[in-house]
């Protein structure tokens, strides 16, 4: 496996430095820094982790360890319309898995993947606090309740 080259635009480097600076470059704030970085970039590519490593003086292996441990962090860019299927208990017992399978089939994606055109990305999460609407699907900021596998195609059509 070849070595990863750290290549970033100047403004991106400045942004990461600004985020690290806002937390006083404190290594204890690593998770908060990563949250902010992911908020800004949409994901946490190796290059971003390398710059954070430099700024906070934390080994990049440690940062990668944190990024791969917490399922919230991702190293793949999210699609323009990120789709999340709730797999919390209530949604699960009301058939969320079948809904997820339908999304997988329709999009040809696995959980954690992004479509080649960058339009959709697929993820699952645990409980969005809307159990009364179970099973719940989020596309971007929009919430869909009581989703059945048959609804999946129509939901996707809204984003064509």
């Amino acid at each position, binding site marked *: *496996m070849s070595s990863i080259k*750290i290549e*970033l*635009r100047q403004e991106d480097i400045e942004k990461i430095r600004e985020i690290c600076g806002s937390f006083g470059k404190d290594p204890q704030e690593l998770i908060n820094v990563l949250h902010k970085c992911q908020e800004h970039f949409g994901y946490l590519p190796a290059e971003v982790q*390398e710059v954070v490593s430099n700024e906070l003086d934390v*080994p990049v292996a*440690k940062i990668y360890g944190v990024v*791969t441990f917490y399922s919230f962090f991702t190293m793949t860019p999210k699609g323009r319309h990120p789709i999340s299927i709730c797999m919390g208990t209530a949604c699960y017992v009301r058939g969320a898995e079948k809904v997820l399978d339908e999304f997988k089939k329709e999009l040809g994606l696995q959980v954690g993947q992004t479509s080649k055109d960058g339009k959709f990305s697929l993820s699952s999460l645990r409980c969005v606090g809307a159990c009364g609407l179970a099973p719940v699907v989020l596309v971007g900021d929009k919430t869909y309740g009581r989703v059945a596998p048959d609804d999946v195609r129509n939901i996707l059509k809204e984003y064509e």
Partner: protein
Amino acid sequence: METIKLTIDNRAVEVPRGTTINKAARLLGIEIPVLCYMELKDMNIENKPAGCRICVVEVDGRRNLAPSCATNCEEGMVVRTHTTRVLNARRTVMEFILSDHPKDCLICAKSGTCELQSMAHKLGIREIPGQEIAAMSTYRLDTSPSIIRDLDKCIMCRRCEMMCNEIQTVGALSAVNRGFMSAVAPAFEQNLEHSTCTYCGQCVAVCPTGALTEVDHTPDVLRALADPSKTVIVQTAPAVRAALGEEFGMEPGTLVTGKMVSALRSLGFDYVFDTDFAADLTIMEEGTELLDRLNRHLSGDKTARLPILTSCCPGWVNFFEYYFPDLKDVPSTAKSPQQMFGAIANTYFADKIGVNRKDLVVVSIMPCLAKKYECQRGEFSTDNNPDVDFSISTRELAAFIKQANIDLNNLEDDDFDSPLGESTGAGVIFGTTGGVIEAAVRTAYELQTGKKLERLDFNELRGLEGVREATIDFDGLPIRIGIAHGLGNARKLLDDVRSGKSQFHAIEVMACPGGCIGGGGQPLHHGNSEIIKARVAAIYAEDKKKPLRKSHENPFIIKLYEEFLGSPNSEKAHHLLHTHYFERKKKIVVKH
């Protein structure tokens, strides 16, 4: 100190507050088995993630079993270490660990010295239920110049991670991912080669299983020995003789110098030489460089940078190339003894015996894994012919000797060949922390003051404290010396150099805790620091019985300068015996 009374297996014991159940049990002679836990006493090295749960015990009044390695004793505690519940739990834990562990023990590099294997044996595991349903990890093999990572055999004890981060502050390895996917890996799961790994090998030294092992070069050595067109010579590092005997059942600290020479001769090496000779040579070059920088500094030359740092240790060289590239003109430019030996063997010695360097194979026996990488560095070869062809560890040599049906215990002592096998006590002590600088002081003192040194044992430079300092009186001129072993300790001294706070004239650094005697290629200590102490004592004992104990008095070194090199730091010496360093810190490139 506040003490606590408790009973373990119906026996009373009193311990200071803060003592773990495991340590309290040891005081009673009760060895509660541990797997992930490891401690090197007196060296501030402890791995205590309470991860494996092998060491669980039953505590009266406590609902669940307690990990004894990480549970402190409390007043009146009643602890039981071998109830049915405990033994069943221990067995279950072991079965879980084994369920996704490869079953290739017969051919594993760690077979026979594997702590997981010993534990399975100790716990009497005879079957592994559930292995048919457990996921087997299939992590790709990562082979670097020095170290092989076979993560399928990792049990996530995280000892390597602790050594790499807390002790060495190298930060190459971290626990990554979750569940069955979890592994200890470099950033982005790149290969070790593309990480900041220094190849110090301390991860290998503490790995309980075959997950981390060294790249074995004995097959290459065997091939060279079998080739009649090759002249094969060998050099042995000082720390090897103080540890090799352990692999043959001898007491730690048994010196086997003479037997080792006999064994190497039996293996078929044409000449058996000593890295100690090159250590004496290193002192001539490094000591001269020290005095030159010192005297220029004293006379007000601002370009003379102090302190001077030793440069014998390849793990250390890698470390400052990664982390302190801005200070790369501070270390001595002298090559390590291994590479000085290679350079002299391929020129001076090859000429003497009339062999072309292409037909000369130089093998080194080292307590070290970084030496494998060092001898492959491009700057240490001429026309693609490396100065040192193969470096094998103390462990590999032991295995090689056993394969050749040689019983080290019953060999007669033999002597190194001349001239590259002749050394002084100063060369021997290179094998332990403080030894290089003590050897340098013995020579630099006499060269600087023109006076004979009254005492040769510098006890103020010895010991196992991580960072030590001492001031040596050079006949009215106080020379301040710093010593660090373990890269985390070296980092502390280097930070001071960087910020201009350092007051030292010279600093010795060895990457491994204890110095080379604790190297990544040594027989495994399995967390017993007494072994390391015994090796240190052996090194100083060997020094003491040498007729000559100062490098500049080695008649063969004197002759080498007369016949070949001229004087220390001469142009020829510079060309053959000195090197330069590279910046290896990853650069952030601005994309336009």
